[in-house]
């Protein structure tokens, strides 16, 4: 059935000449492989810019963690490790479903592509939901620098970590930790929101059969983006949640 649709598509091509001119080949490319290589290369370059974008934040994290070590340890202890772990799992599974989506596009299975993409959207939204819950919790705990920060909870130690008794000036420095925490997870969540929105558009077009006739590029490139956002989280999770668990 799939090969039949493909044949039908080719026959309908407005470019009458030569016959082997698939409709998705843009006019300025010589061939489909050239278009595909250019698109993939462009995507990797874009991901490189994203690495530099997050790189600034990771650099700041590195410096301030060295400066305000106790504050970073105490700040890290307040995060919900179960939420972080769940979110990591959710994201890794979503990367799997996305990879399956790309596979479905490559093997030209329209329904399965749509299904895998919708699953990815659901998992992405689940991630954002859990993240929003965490942020709300930090708001309640008065850990949001600039809006409602109070160093109170770091002065006397918590139940789980009774040793987290910081002097007042160091307790104030946890604001740097939370600034970075919100900036990093916020920027990551923004990328997730952009990702989910793009994926929604992609699903609509995939439903119409746009990507299952050999034009895999958009799905493949979106997959790269999704995995990249996933990998950023794979770095954020240990740096923000795990690194000071046993101190």
């Amino acid at each position, binding site marked *: 059935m799939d090969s039949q649709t493909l044949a039908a598509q080719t026959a309908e091509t407005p470019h009458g000449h030569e016959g082997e001119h698939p409709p998705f080949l*843009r*006019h*300025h*490319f*010589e061939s489909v492989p*050239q278009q595909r*290589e*250019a*698109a993939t*290369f*462009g995507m990797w*370059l*874009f991901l*490189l*810019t*994203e690495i*530099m*974008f*997050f*790189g*600034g*934040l990771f*650099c*700041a994290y590195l*410096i*301030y963690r060295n*400066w*305000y070590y106790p*504050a970073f340890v105490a700040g890290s202890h307040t995060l919900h490790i179960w939420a972080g772990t769940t979110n990591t799992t959710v994201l890794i599974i979503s990367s799997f479903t996305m990879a399956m989506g790309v596979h479905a596009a490559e093997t030209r299975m329209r329904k399965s592509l749509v299904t895998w993409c919708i699953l990815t959207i659901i998992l992405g939204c689940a991630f954002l939901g859990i993240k929003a819950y965490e942020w709300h919790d930090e708001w309640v705990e008065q850990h*949001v*620098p*600039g*809006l409602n920060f109070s160093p109170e909870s770091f002065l006397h130690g918590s139940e789980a970590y009774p040793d987290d008794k910081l002097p007042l000036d160091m307790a*104030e*420095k946890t*604001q*740097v930790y*939370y*600034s*970075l925490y*919100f*900036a990093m997870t916020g*920027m990551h969540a923004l990328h997730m929101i952009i990702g989910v929105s793009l994926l929604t558009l992609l699903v609509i077009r995939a439903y119409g059969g746009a990507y299952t006739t050999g034009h895999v590029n958009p799905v493949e490139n979106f997959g790269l983006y999704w995995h990249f956002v996933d990998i950023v989280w794979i770095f954020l999770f240990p740096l923000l949640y795990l690194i000071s668990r046993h101190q």
Partner: protein
Amino acid sequence: MSTIVTLPDQSTATLPRVSYLNKEYGLKSWLLTGDHKRIAMLYLISITFFFFIGGAMAGLIRMELLTPVSDLLAADTYNKVFSAHGIIMVFFFLVPSVPATVGNFCIPIMVGAKDLAFPKINLLSWYLYIAAGILMICCLAFGGVDTGWTFTTPLSTHYLNTHVITAGLAVFIAGFSSIFTGLNFIVTIHRMRAPGMTWFRLPLFVWSHYAASILMVLGTPVLAITLVLIVLERLIGIGVFDPAKGGDPLLFQHLFWFYSHPAVYIMILPGMGVISEVISTFSRKRVFGYTAVAFSSVAIAVFGFFVWAHHMFIMGISNYSALVFSLLTMLVAVPSAIKVFNWSATLYKGSITFETPMLYAFGFLGLFTIGGLTGVFLGTLGMDIHLTETYFIVAHFHFVMVGGMLMAYLAGVHFWWPKMTGRMYPEGVSKLAAVITFVGFILTFFPQFILGYLGMPRRYAAYPPEFQVLNVFSSAGASVLGVGYLLPLLYLTWSLKYGKIAGPNPWQATGLEWQIQSPPLTENFAETPIVTHEAYDYEWLESTKGSEVPTVG
């Protein structure tokens, strides 16, 4: 080997019947175009607009500095005016100037492609530029921003109640426009070259844009995240740069200059590419040391990433890192010098003619060399402490950016104008404009070297009366310079309708773009060219004369 080339007789030239300019009509065909040449034109118009806004700001600054007291502008207005001048000129003129106009127009043709790899992203980049521009205009209309173009913290985050967020977002968006341009260029140069167009057959213009694109792609995102942090700090008060919360303003400086130092190479490298083309064409010689010039562009791009802290010598960075950055700064002078020497060697025994682009290119050579050498003064630690934050700095970077880049931009616009529009500009008045620009420039900025050396600080509306004579010289020069910039605007616009018809190759240049009709077809080439000759091969050009004029109409 005969090197003297007679330029073709333009009186017999005719405009091609079909070109990218008249393929489609109507506003929509321009605003929704994917054609790199049309997008280049859109950029040319919008960049010129911002150039004259930034120029008007410069005019206000120079008028204020005519007298020692702050009389024309109040001190805080003066701050807003020089901030607007800086932001507009850096982010809305210099960064996109050559790449987004001449580069956008020429690079696909030079590599033998029909378009850039991603035409829609190219158009998106123009729309982002316009969105950023509108935000910036809004920022000015609502009362402006007075941080200077550097958004220095904690000044920008804590002590000002001007429109820092609007300006910051404008620059953020303009940054993405620049990222997309750079990304498009890199992919195009890698993946879209015509058969036979090897890396070492590429014109040096393409090499320098490749190097600048690397900087755009790697540097600009760091500026983006820095601005995001500034905006968040102002908006909700997070503390990454706020000392009261444990943050460090010095980190802001590191992140900002990690982009903004490479940014000066983003600004100058495309200009160097223009100069390579112009000097080769009007000396009728292959650029001397092609490989060295090509690799020096890449070397500038690489070294450019490791010198940013020379903007911070007096900001309390460690002496050891200052030492290292000072040495690295001097190292970056080497590839720039390689270029200047190679251009000079290209001129040697060439058949030089003095067309307008060549006059601008000569202006570039002299002024850029002065600007570059004073950069080495400033890279020296002891000198820097004396000279930094004075007019010496102002003179230095204006020599590089205005004397260098703006000259190169005008050289490029004049050089490719016949290709872009199919018509010539009036030769006499354009030569006059080139000379006026040069004289006006020297008169404006040379006194500032002396002023800075004598200790006049930058960024103040008032100054001690003994500095007045030199400031009057400078302001007088600025008015001459203003005339020098208005003239091209007038006669280039005039030439659109009344200019002589140029013909495909009025300069007898060797680039692929000169072998097709002017203005080109929408898809540039009637059929994909096969490249069999090296860049700047004037003998090849001679051998093709009379036999091959590929036009389709």
